[in-house]
């Protein structure tokens, strides 16, 4: 069905092109066969609106035809698909990653659930005990008071009760996912910085 229409269209198109060529190079010969001036005077060609309408219709129907045909081409045999690495394979610290994702999604949904803060708090306490040699109670108090790092984001995240500035709270509202991820990243980086500093001091 499609093939017949296609062949018909092709034949008409070829005939029209041949006609055009004939008119350009031998207008006299064609003129004796076809009423050229009558065709030129017909509304579809002489009136601007008619010309626009006629040519526009042909053009748009061609475009639609191409759009239709291009969709149902057979893609043929495919290459083996690119497979993403199996995500369910356990990786080191995978459970914490899951907690971070859950917290990020909760923040995006406007909920106030945080499954990471307590874990990071105990991590910071452990690191502080190791670095400063203080006891756990002191370390815990310092973390809760936000007095363990120079990073205001990390300090505010682990502190007891929000000590965040209005600007930061607004940012958290506007960009919930990014802000949550950033807090976690900055906090881990602050703990790593504690250990790095200690290592540098000992190296000296």
């Amino acid at each position: 069905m499609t093939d017949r229409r296609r062949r018909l269209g092709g034949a008409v198109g070829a005939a029209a092109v041949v006609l055009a060529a004939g008119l350009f190079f031998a207008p006299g010969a064609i003129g004796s066969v076809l009423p050229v001036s009558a065709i030129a005077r017909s509304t579809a060609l002489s009136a601007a609106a008619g010309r626009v309408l006629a040519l526009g219709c042909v053009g748009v129907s061609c475009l639609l035809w191409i759009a239709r045909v291009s969709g149902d081409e057979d893609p043929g045999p495919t290459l083996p698909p690119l497979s993403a690495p199996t995500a369910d394979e356990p990786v080191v610290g995978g459970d914490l990653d899951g907690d971070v994702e859950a917290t990020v999604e909760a923040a995006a949904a406007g909920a106030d659930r945080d499954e990471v803060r307590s874990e990071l708090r105990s991590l910071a306490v452990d690191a502080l005990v190791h670095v400063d040699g203080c006891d756990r109670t002191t370390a815990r108090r310092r973390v809760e008071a936000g007095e363990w790092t120079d990073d205001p984001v990390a300090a505010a995240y682990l502190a007891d009760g929000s000590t965040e500035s209005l600007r930061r709270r607004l940012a958290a509202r506007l960009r919930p996912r990014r802000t949550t991820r950033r807090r976690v990243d900055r906090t881990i980086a602050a703990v790593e910085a504690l250990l790095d500093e200690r290592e540098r001091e000992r190296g000296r």
Partner: protein
Amino acid sequence: MSTAPAAGRPARTTAAGSVAVGVVATLGLGAATGETAVTAVGLAAGLALAGATRAATDAETALAGMLAALGGGLGVAGVAAVTLARVPWPPTLPVPFLPAAPFLLLLAGGLVGFGAAATVWHLPPAATGRAAVAGATVAAAPAAAGVVAAGGLAAAVPVAVVAAGLVVADRPALDGPALVAGAGLVVPLAVVDGRLATVAVEAAADETRRRALVDALAVTGPLGAVAGVVVAAPALAAGFLLAVRLAADTGLLGRVAGLQLVAAGTFLAAVAGGIAGTGVVVLVGVAAALLAWDLGEFAATLGREVGRGGASRRGEFVHVGGAVALAAVAVVAAVTAAGLVRTLPASGTPATVVAAAAAAVGTLLLLAALR
């Protein structure tokens, strides 16, 4: 570490080449047409709308809405600039027929800017719907304020009823931050609306137009008029974003929508250049659009079949070389053809008119049949 699989992303080098060709060609065509500023504004608007889409995929609705409003605002500004350069202020009906090229270039810039950013950020076209909704949410408060300002207490009641109905019916879809951001826009508008109205009235070109503007302001009130202009921005943005979404849903845009939009925008810019009569540059522009498309398609299939991790540098360079050569051949052929056509008698004899029509229809039918 982002766990988003790189599988299926277009190959990096070739995709970058495609985007670069599109951006440079579009700006060049804009410059050749004498509309560099409009094209650049379109590009910026496209970038802002892509940013809105990106923010929407990250659940940052307020940001998405504001960026959509910004993109739409740039679009509105572009349209206004093009119009006011040719029509005295304030435009009154009937508006005279305006040249199409600057508007097409604005749209072309928008498509290229959006497509370029969408390629870099790998935005799914489906996400544009969310950005459009965010833009509409931001517009809600100014729209309500405008209606109330124009209609007084009589309008306030239905607005309140509609708002209450929305809250009850569609609670989860209402996004607090975006609504609040929109409400935040109302405050400065309410402060400056009177002054803006005065400036607008004083800028009128003649007395008749001034009276028409004053009459219009009397109906809407200054706040209503300003809010209307502000609402037009997210509306335009939503229109653009939803059109992209529609094109994707109907299958016009494939997996690499961004690259397709870049090529389409470049093509549109070339057509605009042709309409404005910029000369041979148009042929180069069309070739650049097809080159961008060629590279984009190559990047897409390569990304799908080999992926970004695979070694493909040499294969990419070879194809880029071949594609540039093909584009150059096409330009040479088209310039030659244009030269030949110019030597033909440009007359309105019945024979040539019929011949031109027959050639056009015949070629169209042949092309369609060959597909």
